[in-house]
């Protein structure tokens, strides 16, 4: 093995993955250089399979040859490995617990619920819409009038949630659900986040996401 080959940061990722985007945003916030490697999820690289043998999923952050898996764990790792700048979690233990709670909620609910919006039709889709609106309203309530979920500082919960905003266009097109109408208080928060370079550079064009969703629907034989 060539000297230095194992050094540095590599992010194994997939362009449209909101989980991968979380890691990209966190790395950008910390101003840390890394190599981005696009994975073909239908033909996973030996490196990915070796680095995440348990789940075989992206994202994986490989730091000096050692892998870290699971997006929220990666984000916390990034925060702890570069503690001298741009803290992603608050200093106070109780506030940290709250941040982890809401990030965990986004993890548990957003992806599954959002996926149902474009995968299902008819009554099942209507149920999924109700569920999704509930989650949006919960998050809207938690944000309140704050600048970011953690207060004045952009942090873990914002990072956990903002990638899903690139899917709002797709949810509207597929399920006639406007996240902006259902949770209007989130709109200024989305705008504020997108003004951050870390976010604007990491999130895909919503139209491209929609193209991808249409492709997946064809693959799954949906409508």
């Amino acid at each position, binding site marked *: 093995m060539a000297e230095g080959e194992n050094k540095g940061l590599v992010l194994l990722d997939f362009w449209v993955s909101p989980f991968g985007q979380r890691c990209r945003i966190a790395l950008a916030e910390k101003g840390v250089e890394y190599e981005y490697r696009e994975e073909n999820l239908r033909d996973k690289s030996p490196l990915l399979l070796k680095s995440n043998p348990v789940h075989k999923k992206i994202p994986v952050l490989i730091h000096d040859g050692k892998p870290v898996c699971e997006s929220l*764990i990666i984000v916390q790792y990034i925060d702890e490995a570069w503690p001298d700048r741009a803290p992603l979690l608050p200093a106070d233990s109780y506030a*940290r617990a709250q941040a982890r*709670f809401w990030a965990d909620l986004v993890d548990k609910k957003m992806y599954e619920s959002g996926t149902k919006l474009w995968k299902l039709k008819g009554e099942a889709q209507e149920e999924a819409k109700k569920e999704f609106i509930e989650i949006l309203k919960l998050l809207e309530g938690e944000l309140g009038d704050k600048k970011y979920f953690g207060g004045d500082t952009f942090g873990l919960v914002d990072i956990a949630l903002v990638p899903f905003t690139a899917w709002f266009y797709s949810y509207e097109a597929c399920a006639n659900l406007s996240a902006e109408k259902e949770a209007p208080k989130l709109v200024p928060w989305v705008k504020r986040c997108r003004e951050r370079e870390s976010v604007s550079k990491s999130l895909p064009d919503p139209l491209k996401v929609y193209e991808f969703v249409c492709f997946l629907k064809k693959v799954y034989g949906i409508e």
Partner: protein
Amino acid sequence: MAVEVKVFRSWGNPFSYRVELALRLKGVAYEHIEEDLSNKSTLLLDYNPVHKKVPVLLHHGKPIAESLLILEYIEETWQENPILPKDPRERAVARFWCRFLDDKCLVALWMSCWTEGETQQNFMEQAKECLHLLEEELKGKKFFGGDSIGMVDIAASSIAHWLGVLEEVAGISLLDEEKYPNLCKWTEEFLKSDAVMECLPKRANLLALFQTRKQAISSVK
């Protein structure tokens, strides 16, 4: 100065147990509040309006929900007997296995015991795969946390105690000593700890609880 720590829990619930164990390992005095999960108190619903579940930790009147998150809070608040390593990478590994337990392993183990037929077979296959991964992770270590009980060990406590009871009730065998010698040795070491034993629900009572539940499910068919 009185430290005000309360735990909303349900007797026999392994997630509540995690919180009590962590507090005891750190020598933190607390009061437990028993919840009847079929008739949840207004207090619990106020403190955990999103999930409406136990456990909830109340510290100086402020609530924290979700057992793994509570463990992180306990670790940050009381520094004695650390349950997480200091190194960021090792912490990431510990968090990974905690999530693995919650998202995959314990679900498979639990469902293996409450389902039947082909569904059960599928869950049992998943469960065995999960146990194998944990077996490998334990290689050469006394505990998942190394020389002392750590967060992953605490998260895995249902394997050390609840699993045996569930296997008996369901009439199946998952934690085979021949296949998983490391895990079985780990169980022995884990159950030697005073803190572990102090608040562990009695096996006979857990057995009665699960047998009643099994009968209730069977009688519905």
